[in-house]
């Protein structure tokens, strides 16, 4: 540890030591002492407006907000004594008096902080018998809708657009209990990070247009994953319904990678799991059983010891897949050559609090580490291969890139190849291109284990979040079966 000044303090009678520049709420949360909060968010500035995080500090005349109170040496804080409990109760009541009782149709229901804190800190009856204030509904942008009446004006979303996305589309309009969140005139909440506002909204005021009315959250089950949409490798939580359909992807906190943010494209990237998949192996464009397809592939790859074989491995493959391919080629086609490729790298989209990588490949760093290949240039990239003109006997194309448009370079290489052995989970343009002799279905990163190395060199392993939706297999399994087949060839023992 570097020189961090710390202070010793007591929270609910527990001695804790925390950095001197922290606030009470952070100190408490760090020590697993829960203090309820709406407007406070560890990655945003302090607003101090919801007033629910009341704590008592010894010596202070009345409860103070934990989010805006700096820690001090010898400070004694209580979070469950009568004054703050009463204060919280009052704040909960105020929050609910104008809040509509539309939980049955609210998307947030089930993961709503108002519901949770109402149970924990609220009262069991209402005393407000007047007419509620009604506010407007609005479509904030392509992915976000706003229910004004549900809003508790915590301004997390406003601070997010000011501080993290830096785009500043949102503001508060009107005054007092007529206040609403709105986009500034002529603006639309369409920045590439807009859906984070849905995550940080503690109530059902900002909801995702994509997830709206798709499922009740208590019918979902969740698994952890890593986003494959770019080289950032955002940690994600994938929510699926009872039929294993992915309903939404939300970020999972990892301060070393993505904090608690994620781009909209990554969240909405999952439809390729269910659509346009290569269901079964194909030989010569016709469905085949795995064994025949493997045999055909092996024959093509190992012809002439691989002298005429070229492998092209994309930066969308896992480290494990790449290592398998390396082993396969070493064993069955030692004379072959390997090249790397991937989605073209464009400029990063840099925001004040987040960067969306322009490298739309999840594992370009892994490609370099495992196979020593690059996609953007150098002697072992697709560019180098495309500049040659010698015909290729067998092209082993390990693809696994969703929504891929064939680049001129890849087209040149395909045109030069006599046969193509394709490993891919999609049944897109590549499969239809013509000279695909054998196609072996693989799995998406949602369906298999693997490891991606992100742009900062952090290797992140992930597990499948769902059962495979095709007859595809992970590359590791395909390769081990291929080598088993090859052994059977040489020993004469039928596998």
């Amino acid at each position: 540890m570097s020189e961090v000044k710390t202070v010793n303090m007591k929270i609910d009678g527990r001695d804790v030591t925390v950095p001197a520049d922290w606030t009470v709420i952070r100190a408490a949360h760090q020590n697993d002492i829960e203090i309820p909060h709406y407007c406070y968010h560890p990655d945003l500035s302090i607003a101090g407006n919801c007033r629910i995080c009341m704590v008592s500090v010894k010596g202070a005349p009345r409860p103070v907000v934990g989010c805006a109170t700096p820690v001090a040496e010898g400070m004694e804080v209580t979070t469950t004594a009568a004054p703050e409990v009463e204060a919280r109760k009052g704040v909960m009541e105020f929050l609910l008096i104008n809040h509509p009782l539309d939980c049955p149709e609210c998307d947030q229901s089930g993961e709503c902080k108002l519901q949770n804190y109402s149970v924990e800190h609220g009262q069991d009856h209402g005393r407000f018998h007047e007419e509620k204030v009604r506010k407007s509904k609005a479509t904030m942008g392509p992915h976000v809708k706003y229910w004004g009446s549900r809003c508790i004006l915590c301004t997390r979303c406003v601070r997010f657009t000011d501080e993290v996305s830096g785009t500043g589309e949102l503001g508060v309009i009107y005054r007092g209990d007529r206040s609403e969140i709105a986009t500034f005139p002529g603006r639309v909440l369409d920045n590439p990070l807009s859906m984070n506002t849905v995550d940080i909204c503690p109530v059902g005021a900002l909801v995702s247009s994509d997830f709206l009315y798709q499922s009740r959250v208590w019918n979902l089950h969740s698994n952890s994953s890593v986003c494959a949409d770019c080289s950032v490798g955002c940690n994600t939580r994938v929510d699926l319904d009872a039929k294993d359909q992915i309903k939404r992807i939300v970020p999972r906190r990892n301060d070393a990678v993505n904090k608690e943010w994620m781009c909209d494209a990554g969240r909405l990237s999952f439809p390729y799991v269910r659509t346009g998949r290569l269901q079964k192996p194909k030989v010569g464009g016709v469905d085949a059983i795995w064994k025949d397809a493997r045999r055909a592939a092996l024959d093509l790859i190992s012809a002439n010891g691989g002298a005429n074989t070229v492998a092209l491995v994309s930066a969308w493959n896992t480290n494990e897949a790449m290592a398998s391919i390396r082993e396969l080629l070493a064993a069955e086609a030692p004379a072959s050559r390997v090249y790397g490729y991937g989605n073209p790298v464009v400029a990063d989209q840099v925001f004040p609090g987040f960067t969306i990588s322009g490298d739309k490949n999840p594992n370009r760093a892994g490609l370099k580490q495992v196979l020593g290949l690059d996609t953007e240039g150098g002697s072992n990239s697709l560019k180098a291969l495309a500049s040659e003109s010698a015909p290729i006997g067998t092209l082993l194309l390990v693809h696994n890139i969703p929504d891929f448009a064939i680049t001129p370079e890849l087209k040149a290489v395909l045109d030069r190849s006599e046969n193509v052995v394709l490993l891919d989970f999609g049944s897109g343009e590549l499969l239809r291109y013509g000279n695909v002799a054998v196609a072996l279905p693989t799995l998406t990163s949602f369906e298999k284990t693997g490891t991606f190395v992100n742009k900062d060199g952090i290797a992140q392993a992930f597990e499948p979040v769902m059962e495979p939706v095709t007859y595809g297999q992970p590359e590791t399994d395909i390769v081990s079966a291929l080598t088993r087949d090859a052994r059977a060839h040489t020993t004469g023992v039928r596998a």
Partner: protein
Amino acid sequence: MAETTPPATEAPAPKPVVPFSPVLLKYIHEPNSHTLEHFLARGGYETARKHVGETDPASLIAIVKDSGLRGRGGAGFPTGMKWGFLAKGTGKPAYLAVNGDESEPGTFKDRHILEKDPHQLIEGVILTCWAIQSNHAFIYLRGEFILGYQRLEAAVKEAKAKGFIGEKSFGKDFPLKITVVRGAGAYICGEETGMLSSIEGGRGYPKIKPPFPAVSGLFKCPTIVNNVETIANVTHIIKNGADWHKQWGTEKSPGYKIFCLAGAVKKPGVYEVPLGITMREFIDVYGGGLIEGRSIKAVIPGGLSAPLLTPEMVDKCTLDYESLASLGSMLGSGGITVLHDGVDMMSAIYNTMRFYHHESCGQCTPCREGTGWLEKLAHKHHAGHAHAGDADLLADVAKNMRGRTICVLADAAAMPMQSYLQHFRGEFDKRVGEAAYVERGRSARDEITPAAKRETVAHGAPGVLDVGMGMDRV
């Protein structure tokens, strides 16, 4: 009128009564009192010329500290002490922000300085800036002050043309810029940090304290925020000395102050009087007593948010910070409103609550939601639709609002409600179901307010046959 010396009174003044004639408002009745010529002819800018670039700033702060001048905006914090809190050596510029967003109902003192004597304020600003070594002052004006804005803006231009402010103020090596900023008509921008947010170009949301403005205020730089009247006082105190200022007032509330008198008096208006005179004297001598045939029901002593004084409390009250605090109220901004015995207190409290509901900025939950709730309940009492227990609910809501927000607007709304409930609870209770009985001659149960309907459904309504309900019950 205002110039008349107060007659020797029976008030227990600890020191000999010194004749007082207005200081800040001395010239406001003269034509063209707002012009530079008029101001220069009466020795204007001489004090600033004498001290800027010459006198040690610390000694000026010492004079103001010694004078005991307390902030005239409402809180009454000692001005010199506040100046002493200004963070030094931060490497950032220091600012002076003068609060002219006078919007507390019942208060209309600063506008007279702004409209009738703007140069007096500017000289105070120059001296204050020299004392706290600030090179940029902002004067924030209430948006409705059109004339005040025009005259202050013109006065700043004149002062600049004369070289009193600018790159070299009075030819000394002291650059000073004065920026006049106008509000857009929000009460909350009169709160010091709300005003700073507004000057910064943001929504007028008050900021969390600490850090206090003296440490991190305008544009996150050390800032002194003072009221217009406070700053106007500075010139006179520096010119005449601390002891001159202390010859009036009480020990803890020295000096004189401008009070605004409104309501059921014969001569409402703006009066500058020494602190410590009795409230009765102020109302009866300066205000000419109550209008014919009326007596005092209550007095709002320091702007609308100050808790009420009953006639008995008025008799005991003197116009200084301590006396009013001891009576559970406050001197505040000095806006005194007299309510006569014919005033319907439910109407008064409803009007008060309507104001705070309208003006809550909406940042903190208790204030945003609580002010609206208070207004709705006050309206029910005003209109006679109240239910038994609503007055208790009002008390509880007001209690839940107090001390739980970033700024004191929630307290400003809750305090009058609490004092009305304390002193006039009978009038609240009288309104329970009154309208239904009196105005319509019908049963209170027939009222079709949602609450009444709910109650009917919950408790059943004898004599009312509800077919649908009856079927269900069977």
